């Protein structure tokens, strides 16, 4: 089926998210929409899926204009969506999830689970998926869950499949498998829209690449275009994709973790005897697929996690059992992985966010009162220093772009005297320009002699930043390797395979 988006314009208030976007997806074509986060890709797809109504423009399927007032209409017209965050009910089985929303029934409205099972088996067989219709979603690995999403879309006879950032949660191996699946779908005549900001994947799989920047189509490219060309289209200027840094000059061990174990509320082991040393002046990056204990490791150090066993010692001082405030005061800087949730207060201004951790002490407070003048001066100075682009320090942080929000977090965390710097997913969802800035700050921190712990699920970032890489799998450090280790080996380590 041919999909044509013609002159789509979508505004939110004064903000134009999509500005007269034209995209044509030919039948059996993999069409990549490439753009930074916030470029308007997801908005465009939500328009296509009937979740938003565009102010202008039209959607045509095989030349016939469509009017979708909800996802139901879009699905009936043959559009399927594989969401970035899976829309699956964890306690339902595969078959139950697949039939959800268009449940087959027998006489008198009795659910026909058997026909749903058969449908799952039939579609899985067609693509060699090997899905058990009776498996519960929560027991399946992430990559398999994604296949359930795909089967769900296909079971409604989707002719156009939209993949919204599908590789964000996958291991390199699972990513390769997904790319295989997309090719297979294409051979069977399905049109595919592949939304991504990852150049490598886009180049590997796409037939046509449309680059979107600030809500506009800024160009299209062949998959043969180089990464540099695509990146400069994405951000509108030439960028360097590598991190400029000198070899590390590591000193003594600063942070020493021994036998660190933890369980979550359900009693599942999240950290399983972690041993780790980080030296002054080195960047140690934790690689691994999301959900293998990295978040818990960072939270354990910072004091956000209770019930810990083992020891975490920073320059000889035990951190376990201390409050977050005590840990921060001991000289730990922390960039949390969920920036908008844990890093900033969106409704607070830039100035307020910059003093979130020390509103009650010198130089910002005397007694109970805040020294608002000092707070303002500090904010002005840090905004300049960290190049926070805004309409002034009284701007609410929630109105800033992800990159500028992260600059605020960095400015706050790096302006204390540090003995350890932890950054979780430091560039998640940022544009290329901001990524570069964040990376420079991290390297500068290392060069100042501070030990740096990076947690990232972006293998590219880990490899670019790290002086040493520790790979985590199921709460354990599987191995600590050099940054020039091959991606294949890193991939197997991330899957828990110790060769």
């Amino acid at each position, binding site marked *: 089926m041919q999909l044509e988006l013609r002159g789509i314009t979508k*505004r939110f*208030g004064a903000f134009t998210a999509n500005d007269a976007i034209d995209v044509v997806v030919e039948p059996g074509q993999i069409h990549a929409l490439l753009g930074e986060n916030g470029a308007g890709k997801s908005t465009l797809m939500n328009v296509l899926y009937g979740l938003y109504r565009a102010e202008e423009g039209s959607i045509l399927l095989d030349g016939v204009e469509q009017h979708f007032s909800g996802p139901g209409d879009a699905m009936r017209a043959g559009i399927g969506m594989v969401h970035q965050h899976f829309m699956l009910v964890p306690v339902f089985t595969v078959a139950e999830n697949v039939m959800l929303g268009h449940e087959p029934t027998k006489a008198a409205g009795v659910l026909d689970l058997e026909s749903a099972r058969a449908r799952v088996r039939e579609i899985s067989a067609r693509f060699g998926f090997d899905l058990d219709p009776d498996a519960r979603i929560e027991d399946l690995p992430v990559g398999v869950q994604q296949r359930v999403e795909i089967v769900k879309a296909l079971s409604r006879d989707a002719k156009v499949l939209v993949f919204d950032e599908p590789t964000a949660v996958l291991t390199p191996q699972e990513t390769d498998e997904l790319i295989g699946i997309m090719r297979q779908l294409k051979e069977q005549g399905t049109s595919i829209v592949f939304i991504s900001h990852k150049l490598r994947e886009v180049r590997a799989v796409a037939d046509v690449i449309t680059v979107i920047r600030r809500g506009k189509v800024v160009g299209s490219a062949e998959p043969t275009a180089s990464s540099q060309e695509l990146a400069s289209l994405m951000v509108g200027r030439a960028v360097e994709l590598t991190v400029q840094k000198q070899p590390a000059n590591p000193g003594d061990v600063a942070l020493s973790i021994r036998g660190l174990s933890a369980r979550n509320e359900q009693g599942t082991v999240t950290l399983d005897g972690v041993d780790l040393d980080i030296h002054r002046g080195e960047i140690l990056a934790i690689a691994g697929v999301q959900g293998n204990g990295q978040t818990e490791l960072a939270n354990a150090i910072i004091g956000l996690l209770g019930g810990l066993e083992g020891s975490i010692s920073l320059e000889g001082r035990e951190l376990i059992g201390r409050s977050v405030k005590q840990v921060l005061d001991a000289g730990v800087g922390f960039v949390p992985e969920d920036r908008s949730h844990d890093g900033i207060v969106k409704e607070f201004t830039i100035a307020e966010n910059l003093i979130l*951790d020390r*509103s009650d002490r010198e130089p910002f407070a005397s007694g109970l009162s805040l020294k608002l003048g000092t707070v303002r001066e500090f904010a002005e100075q840090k905004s300049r220093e960290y190049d926070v682009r805004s309409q002034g320090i009284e701007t609410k942080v929630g109105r800033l772009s992800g990159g500028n929000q992260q600059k605020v977090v960095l400015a706050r965390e790096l302006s204390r005297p540090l003995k350890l710097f932890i950054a979780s997913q430091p560039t998640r969802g940022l544009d290329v320009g901001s990524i570069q800035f964040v990376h420079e700050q991290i390297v500068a921190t290392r060069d100042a002699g501070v030990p740096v712990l990076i947690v990232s699920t972006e293998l590219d970032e880990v490899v670019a930043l790290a002086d040493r890489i520790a790979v985590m799998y199921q709460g354990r450090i599987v191995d600590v390797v050099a940054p020039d280790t091959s991606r294949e080996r890193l991939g197997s380590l991330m899957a828990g395979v110790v060769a």
Partner: protein
Amino acid sequence: MSAVTPPVVPPVEERDRRDGKAGAVVREIMSGSVVLSIAAILLSFVIGGILIAASDEDVQETAGYFFARPGDMLGAILDAVGGAYGALLRGAVFNPRGDSLGEMLGPISETLVYATPLVAAGLGVAVAFRAGLFNIGGTGQIVAGAAAAGWVGFAVDLPPVLHVIVALVAGILGAAVWAGIVGILKARTGAHEVILTIMLNYIALRLFDYLLTTPVLQQPGTVNPISPPVSGDAMFPSMVGRLHWGFVVMLLAVVAIWWLFAKSNLGFKIRAVGLSPSAARTAGINVGIIYVVTFAIAGGLMGIAGSAQILGTERTLTGGIAGSIGFDAITVALLGRSKPFGVLAAGILFGALRAGSRTMQASEGVPVDIVLVVQSFIVLFLAAPPLVRAIFRLPAPGSRATAILSRSKGAKA
């Protein structure tokens, strides 16, 4: 294609709604504009007017021959509504029929007497709102404060001036401790404060009823659940007529709470916790302690309300000492957008409604309940801002530019 489209819900708001946070509702209400509040008040008075007209006998009678002489019915409506609201104003603001200046201005002082506990208690709800907490426990806290203040007032012998001050402090502390329990339980166990405060209301009321039948609070020589009168030294001195110094204490509380949130680091932390507990925790703020402190402050304000009741107007403790102040306070805080001076204005409005409703009933025969209906509709409209925006064609927040743009486009077309 430039058709005027309905205002779009911005994505941020949508995300909050999907998170299903109760805090988002409070934030939505707090972020509303003054215009919206005034619109809600006006609308509620219009509905009140319709009810007054509909229940008026003259209007009902003239409606019978409406098509013969429509003017009669319209006149009757005007008489009924105008008379009722005129009486409301006379009872609440200014009485031109008074014999002396004091009598003419009597109503406004009566309004302020009613407003004093309402504003203090409204602040008690508002402070909790700022920390993302619902304080439904006003009733219990006011009872605790009034009991403590009253007990010091009649059972302790102290010199003048000092006596009223100690009684007030006791009232504040009593209520602060009672509310602090909620904070401690929430911080320690994660129990929800709405459940805790509601349950503690019952405990406070029943305990109070019981103490009123024991020598601790009961007046000697009576079998009624009533305390001895508070000693004259411990009463708030009168300023004008029934208006007492508790009003000034309330005004000081308004300024103190304004300072807390505008200028102090404690207020900063409370706001941070209210807007994003997780970010506050990650930045090293002890969220549990903030909950306890916030509830203690909220309770202290309820204690001022309770003290104003017992030391300002009631003088003796009875089971009905808290009245409906604890719940009206929620309305006052919502209407005041949880801002100190907003709460002051809202409290005075509600005080005026109460003061005026008596005159309205006495001189026009309109039931006092009309005022309750008006109050309830104010809350209803505040809780449904899109409804008010639609009626008054106000722009949605953040979409001012589009609204103006599409309007000018529409004008050209």
